[in-house]
C-alpha cells in the first residue's frame, strides 16, 4: 500500500500565505522556488515523511480524477477493492453493496475465504491461496453467495498484487463484477443446449456437424457409438476431418468415399442443398449398410453441413433375403435338371450372403446316410480343392453338423468352428480360412431329403427373418427335387415303354378326336409327314370291305378299344401288304375324349403263309421236295411269330362292348391259333405239299 498524499487544503488568504511559507521552507533550491512562484509545480515531497504534498490545483485535479475513476468503476464493474498483505480487505467500494450484503463494513478486515461463499471447496481455496502466495494475477474467480434477499448471486473477482517502490508486497487490489444475470442467461442457454443435446442424442440416426473444412464440430451419441463399432468412413470422431476420412477410405469403400466427399463438398459450397448416398462397410461383425444424408446449414456460426448416417443393415438384409427368395424361385423355374437347380440355388445363396461355398448332401433313404451330391464355390483354388475333397463324403444322421441337421430337422450354424465340438473337420474348410458354417435341411412335405451346408470365414448369427427364408428355400428346393425325381422316373418309364413298344410293334400313332393322324412314327410303311390329317381308311391303297370299315368306324365312334384290326394295301407293284393295328381311346384330365393312339404291325409275311397254307389243303406234295421243306420252315416261322405276337400283346385288355375286358375272347383267339399250329404240326406231308403246290400255282 502506497502512502496517501497529504491533502493540505488552504483556506483564505492567511491560510494560503501560511501554506506557501510552509512549502517554501521545504524547498531549498532556487529553481524550485522560482517554479513554485511561477505556479509550475504540482507537488512537493516532504523529505521528512516522504509524502508528496499536493499543491491546490493538483489536489483539485486529483479529486476530480478520483471522482471520475469511481464513476468509471461504477460503469465497468460493480466493486473495487484492496487487500493488505494478509489478504484482508482494507477497502471495498461499489454501487450496490447493500443489495449484495458485502458492504464495506461487512468485508473490511476479512479475507475472501472468510465470506459466505458456498461454491468453492477447501481445495479450491487452498489453490487460490497458493496463487496469492505466488503473487500471481487472478482473473474471473467465480464465487456464489446468497444476498440479503435470499437470492443466489454470482460474482466474478479479479485481482493483482501491489508492490511498493521498494518492490515490497503490500497486498492485492482488484474488482468484482456481479455476473448473476449472465450466469442465469448461461444457465438458460445451457439448459437449452442440454435440451437440444438430449434430443440429438435421442435420435437413432448418427449426426455430425461439419465446418467449412469438413472438420467434425459436434456429434451425437449415436455417432460416437457408430465410430466405436465401425471402421472406415463411419469411423470419424469429433474433431477429425470427415472429408479427409472419405478421401482416404480404402478397399471396398474407396469409391463410396470419393462419392461422399464430392457430395459433402458440394453441400458445403452451397451448390446443392441435400446429398444422399447409401454405402456398405465391412466390420468385424459382418457387412453393414448405411444411408447417408448430408444437408447444408446457414447462419453465422461455423457449421456448414449436417451429416446424418442411418444404419439400414436390417432393412438391407431384408431386401437381400427377399431378392434371394425371388432368385431361388427363378433358378428353380429355369432349371430343367436337379443338378442345374442345385448349383444355381447354392450359388444364389452364396452370392446373396457373401459366403464362399455351399454343398448339397442328399439323403439316401435306403442306406440312411447323407451323400455328397452337388456344390458351388467361388473360383478360388483353396475353395475348389475343398469342394473336390468333399466328393464322396458320407454322413450318418447325427454325425457332424450335416448329420445333426438331418437328424434335428432344424438349421444349425457355427460362428467359429474351431471352438465348436459339434463340427467335424469335414464340415468346415479350415484350409480356406472358413471357420463358420451354416447348414439347413432341404425338405419336401416336411420330410428331409437332403441338407445344404455353406462355409465362410464369418457367419453372422441369423435372425428370425433369415431362418424363415432358409426354411422357405429348403422347402422350395426340396419340392423341386422331389418333382424332378418324379419327372425323371416318369421319363424313364416312358423310355422303357417306348422301347417295349418298339419291340412289339412297327410303328406308333396318335389321332385326334376325328381319328385323323396327329402323329405317326417314322418307320411306318405308308409315308412321311403327308400322312398327318389322314384316317386309317384314307391311307393310300387300302383294300377292305366297306362293311368292315363301317363296323370299325362304328366301334371308334363308340370309343371302343380295338385290337388286331387287319387290313391290306395294294403296293405300286401290285403286291398286297397286310397290317394289323391296335388302338385305344385317349381322354384328357377332364375326362373328355381327345382321340386315339395305338400301334401298327406289318403282318404281310404271316398273312401270306396263312393264305398259302389254306390254299395247300388237298394239294399233292412230295415230302422230299426241298421246296416243300422250305415252305414248311417258312410256315413254321410265320406261326411262331404269330404265337409270340399273341403272347406279347395279349396283356392289353380287349373291350367286350360292356366296358369289361373280353377274357374269353382273348383266350379263344389264342387257343384257336394254337390249335391251328398244333394241327399244322400233326398235318401230313401231303397237305403241306398241297399247300406248296398251291403256292406255286398261284405264283
Amino acid at each position, binding site marked *: 500500500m*502506497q*502512502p496517501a*498524499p497529504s491533502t493540505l487544503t488552504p483556506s483564505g488568504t492567511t491560510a494560503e500565505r501560511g501554506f506557501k511559507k510552509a512549502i517554501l521552507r*521545504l*524547498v*531549498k*533550491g532556487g*529553481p*524550485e522556488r522560482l*517554479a*513554485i512562484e*511561477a*505556479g*509550475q*509545480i*504540482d*507537488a*512537493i*515531497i516532504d*523529505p521528512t515523511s*516522504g*509524502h*508528496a504534498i*499536493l*499543491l491546490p*490545483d*493538483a489536489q483539485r*485535479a*486529483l479529486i*476530480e*480524477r478520483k471522482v471520475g475513476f469511481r464513476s468509471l468503476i461504477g460503469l465497468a464493474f460493480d466493486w473495487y477493492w484492496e487487500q493488505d498483505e494478509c489478504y484482508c480487505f482494507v477497502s471495498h467500494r461499489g454501487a450496490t453493496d447493500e443489495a449484495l450484503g458485502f458492504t464495506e463494513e461487512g468485508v473490511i478486515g476479512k479475507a475472501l475465504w472468510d465470506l459466505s461463499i458456498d461454491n468453492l471447496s477447501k481445495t479450491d481455496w487452498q489453490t487460490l491461496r497458493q496463487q496469492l502466495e505466488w503473487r500471481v494475477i487472478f482473473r474471473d474467480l467465480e464465487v456464489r453467495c446468497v444476498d440479503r434477499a435470499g437470492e443466489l448471486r454470482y460474482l466474478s473477482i479479479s485481482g493483482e498484487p501491489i508492490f*511498493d*517502490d*521498494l518492490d515490497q508486497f503490500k497486498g492485492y487490489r482488484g474488482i468484482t463484477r456481479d455476473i448473476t444475470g449472465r450466469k442465469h442467461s448461461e444457465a438458460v442457454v445451457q439448459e437449452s443446449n442440454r435440451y437440444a443435446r438430449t434430443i440429438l442424442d435421442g435420435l437413432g440416426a448418427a449426426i455430425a456437424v461439419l465446418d467449412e473444412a469438413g472438420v467434425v464440430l459436434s456429434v451425437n451419441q449415436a455417432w460416437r457409438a457408430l465410430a466405436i463399432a465401425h471402421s472406415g468412413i463411419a469411423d470419424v470422431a469429433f474433431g477429425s476431418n470427415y472429408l479427409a476420412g472419405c478421401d482416404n477410405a480404402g478397399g471396398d469403400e474407396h469409391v463410396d468415399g470419393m462419392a461422399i466427399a464430392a457430395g459433402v463438398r458440394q453441400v458445403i459450397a452451397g451448390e446443392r442443398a441435400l446429398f444422399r448416398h447409401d454405402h456398405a462397410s465391412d466390420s468385424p461383425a459382418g457387412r453393414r449398410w448405411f444411408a447417408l444424408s448430408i444437408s447444408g446449414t446457414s447462419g453465422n456460426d461455423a457449421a456448414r453441413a449436417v451429416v446424418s448416417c442411418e444404419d439400414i443393415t436390417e432393412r438391407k438384409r431384408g431386401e437381400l433375403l427377399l431378392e434371394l427368395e425371388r432368385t431361388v424361385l427363378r433358378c428353380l423355374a429355369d432349371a430343367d435338371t436337379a443338378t442345374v437347380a442345385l448349383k444355381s440355388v447354392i450359388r444364389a445363396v452364396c452370392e446373396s450372403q457373401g459366403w464362399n461355398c455351399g454343398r448339397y448332401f442328399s439323403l439316401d433313404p435306403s442306406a440312411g446316410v447323407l451323400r455328397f451330391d452337388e456344390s458351388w464355390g467361388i473360383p478360388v483354388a483353396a475353395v475348389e480343392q475343398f469342394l473336390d475333397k468333399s466328393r464322396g463324403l458320407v454322413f450318418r444322421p447325427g454325425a457332424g453338423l450335416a448329420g445333426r441337421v438331418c437328424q434335428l430337422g432344424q438349421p444349425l450354424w457355427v460362428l467359429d468352428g474351431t471352438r465348436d465340438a459339434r463340427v467335424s473337420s469335414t464340415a468346415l474348410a479350415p484350409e480356406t480360412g472358413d471357420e463358420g458354417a451354416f447348414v439347413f435341411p432341404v425338405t419336401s412335405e416336411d420330410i428331409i431329403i437332403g441338407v445344404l451346408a455353406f462355409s465362410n470365414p464369418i457367419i453372422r448369427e441369423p435372425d428370425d427373418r433369415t431362418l424363415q427364408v432358409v426354411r422357405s428355400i429348403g422347402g422350395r428346393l426340396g419340392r423341386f427335387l422331389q418333382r424332378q425325381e418324379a419327372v425323371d422316373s416318369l421319363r424313364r418309364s416312358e423310355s422303357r415303354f417306348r422301347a417295349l413298344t418298339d419291340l412289339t410293334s412297327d410303328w406308333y400313332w396318335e389321332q385326334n378326336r376325328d381319328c385323323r393322324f396327329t402323329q405317326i412314327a417314322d418307320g411306318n410303311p405308308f409315308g412321311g409327314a403327308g400322312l398327318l390329317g389322314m384316317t386309317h381308311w384314307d391311307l393310300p391303297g387300302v383294300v377292305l370291305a366297306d362293311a368292315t370299315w363301317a363296323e370299325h368306324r362304328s366301334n371308334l365312334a363308340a370309343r371302343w378299344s380295338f385290337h388286331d384290326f387287319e387290313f391290306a394295301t395294294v403296293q405300286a407293284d401290285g403286291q398286297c401288304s397286310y397290317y394289323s393295328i391296335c388302338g385305344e381311346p385317349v381322354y384328357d384330365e377332364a375326362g373328355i375324349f381327345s382321340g386315339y393312339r395305338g400301334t401298327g404291325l406289318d403282318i404281310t409275311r404271316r398273312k401270306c403263309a396263312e393264305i398259302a397254307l389254306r390254299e395247300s389243303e388237298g394239294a399233292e406234295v412230295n415230302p422230299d421236295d426241298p421246296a416243300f421243306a422250305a415252305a414248311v420252315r417258312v410256315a413254321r416261322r410265320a406261326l411262331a411269330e404269330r404265337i409270340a405276337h399273341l403272347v406279347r400283346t395279349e396283356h392289353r385288355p380287349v373291350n367286350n362292348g360292356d366296358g369289361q375286358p373280353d377274357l374269353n375272347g382273348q383266350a379263344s383267339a389264342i387257343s384257336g391259333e394254337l390249335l391251328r399250329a398244333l394241327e399244322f404240326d400233326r398235318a401230313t406231308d401231303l397237305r403241306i405239299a398241297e399247300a406248296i403246290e398251291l403256292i406255286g400255282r398261284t405264283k
Partner: protein
Amino acid sequence: MARKKAKRVTPDAATTVVVMVLYITESGPNSVRAIANIEAICQEHLKDNFRLEIVDVLEYPRRALADGVVVTPSLAKVSPLPAATVVGNLSDTGEVLRALGIRG
C-alpha cells in the same frame, strides 16, 4: 498510476541516446503539461534518440527522494553526462534544450 515507461527507442550506435526521467504527480495540471511539452521537444529535437521514464511520485515517493527530486514536475537528464535537472512544466523549451545539451 504505476511507473510509467516512456518511449524506448532502438539505440543507434552512431547517435547518442538521451536518457531522461520525468517526475510527475498523476493528474496534476503542470505534470500533464510537462509530459506534453517534453514529448513535443523529444519528437522535434531528438527523433528516436531518447529514452524517457515517467515516475509518479504519489506512487513512488521514495524513488523521487532518492533521486534528489523535491518538486514535481521535474525532468532529470541521466545521460549523457553531465546530469541536469529542469523543474516546472517545461514550457521554456530553450531551458530544456540547454539542460539536455542540445543547445549551448
